[in-house]
């Protein structure tokens, strides 16, 4: 069954002073955009990808977002959120933000193509997959190393792959890769997993997936045309071994996308510090979703954040006027 996605970048008047600019079009940013548009704020959303939805777009199934007793495709949920926000007039521009100047009364957001100005800014930049930190990991990204199962799973029909990680992403995505690959080794450095028990049960019931615990990946032996392998070390015994695989998927947590904001808003281990009203340390700047310190980092919490922040921002703009 083929589906057809319609996502096109909007255009914006160059010299306009926007009420609100949202940076990032994941569930948090899109929901804030939807609410802010309904409040009739002049709002612009900047999203680096052509397709909005953030990490939702690289998630196969979402099972814990209320209202969908049958699992919903991450891509569908993302596309629907985007369409709904656009319906209320949200303008989404597909441009990557290069720098920001947030300390003044008028905030400036610079992309490759334009400088946008706004009274308030909402940071919804989310997080990106963390790398394992192995030698040559970046070099082999796209040549055997992947961080996106929905993107690259189809490259491993009847092949053997490793998955590194022990959380929800590693478990969910292993189940997805099992649709293609013949054999999956799920490798985790501890002896227990942080994935939800229901996912653990499902993975254990999938004969294609073999769990390897107390084990760390130490090297990627991907530079030959012959059989690829990864080097492993047992964290308990110290025993080293080689495992023949055609590729490895890495799901070992996320890092916040906050480089742009360093030195302007207060960060805590890279994440943005917010109060209960989603305010950052800077007046006129809010943050929602995964990028916040202490967030649960779920779709359900992200959309709640987005709605709440839009409400606070609307009030702020009314009070200032």
């Amino acid at each position, binding site marked *: 069954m*083929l589906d057809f*996605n*319609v996502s096109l970048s909007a255009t914006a008047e160059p010299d306009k002073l926007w009420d609100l600019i949202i940076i990032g079009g994941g569930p948090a940013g899109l929901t804030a955009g939807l609410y802010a548009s309904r409040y009739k704020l002049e709002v612009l959303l900047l999203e680096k990808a052509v*397709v909005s939805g953030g990490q939702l777009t690289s998630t196969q199934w979402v099972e814990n977002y209320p209202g969908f007793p049958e699992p919903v495709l991450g891509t569908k949920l993302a596309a629907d959120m985007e369409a709904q926000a656009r319906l209320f007039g949200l303008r989404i521009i597909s441009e990557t933000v290069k720098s920001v100047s947030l300390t003044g009364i008028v905030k400036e957001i610079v992309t490759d*193509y334009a400088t946008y100005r706004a009274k308030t800014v909402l940071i919804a930049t989310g997080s990106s997959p963390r790398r394992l930190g192995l030698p040559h990991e970046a070099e082999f990204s*796209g040549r055997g190393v992947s961080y996106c199962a929905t993107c690259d799973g189809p*490259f491993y029909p009847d092949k053997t792959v490793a998955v590194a990680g022990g959380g929800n992403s590693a478990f969910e995505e292993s189940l997805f890769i099992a649709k293609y690959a013949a054999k999956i080794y799920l490798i985790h450095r501890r002896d227990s997993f942080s994935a939800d028990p229901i996912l653990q049960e499902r993975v254990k019931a999938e004969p294609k997936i073999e769990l390897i615990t107390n084990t760390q990946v130490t090297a990627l032996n991907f530079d030959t045309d012959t059989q690829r392998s990864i080097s492993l070390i047992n964290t308990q015994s110290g025993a080293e071994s080689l495992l023949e695989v055609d590729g490895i998927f890495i799901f070992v947590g996320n890092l916040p996308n906050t480089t742009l904001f360093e030195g302007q808003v207060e960060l805590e281990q890279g994440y943005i510090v917010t109060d209960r009203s989603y305010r950052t340390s800077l007046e006129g700047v809010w943050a929602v979703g995964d990028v916040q310190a202490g967030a649960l980092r779920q779709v359900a919490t992200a959309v709640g954040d987005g709605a709440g922040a839009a409400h606070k921002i609307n009030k702020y703009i009314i009070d200032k006027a």
Partner: protein
Amino acid sequence: MPMLDEKVMTEVKKALNAMRKPVTLRLYTQAFECGYCKETHNLLSELVQANPLLKLETKQFETDKEEAAQDNIDKIPAIAVIGEKDYGIRFYGIPAGYEFSSLLNAILMVSTGIVKLTDETKAFVANLQTPLHLQVFVTPTCPYCPQAVILAHQLAMASDQITADMVEISEFPHLAQKYQVQGVPRTVINEKWSLDGAAPEAMLVAKAKEAL
């Protein structure tokens, strides 16, 4: 049952309202040994209903050899997106999933003439003396891929020296072998150079300079 349901068709019509000049989708197809030729033909037949400025021209890959050679078509299904002239914008394999957005984007770009590139990139392509061929390998389920495809197509639009292909890799597995594609998007420049991921414009241009 139509490929584009009513909801998608409404969105498409709205998006294509921005069209200014006519655009021809020239489809190369054949009746046999082509995985998605029929589906691609059905898709385009429905798509051209969305706007009177949009036209479908169907060529047979086997028999219309001269045209295929002229358009540099070497595999099917292939779509050449042609406006006032041929800018070298191609789609190989069905533009489904997220790549449907890339197709709409190419149509709008060719129709309006609006290209979003930085001044540095425009200066680079304006002075290009040698041909540059970009092949962007994608899968329809890859959300990061349209960005790479749209960027490549914009460069093709901006310079007569540049041609840019979207290649839906699952339909051309021998190319996955040939170019060692195991992750998408991957942009291959002049056969030899490649760039993984949805790279920013400046990074692609830097890579293209290496390839010259």
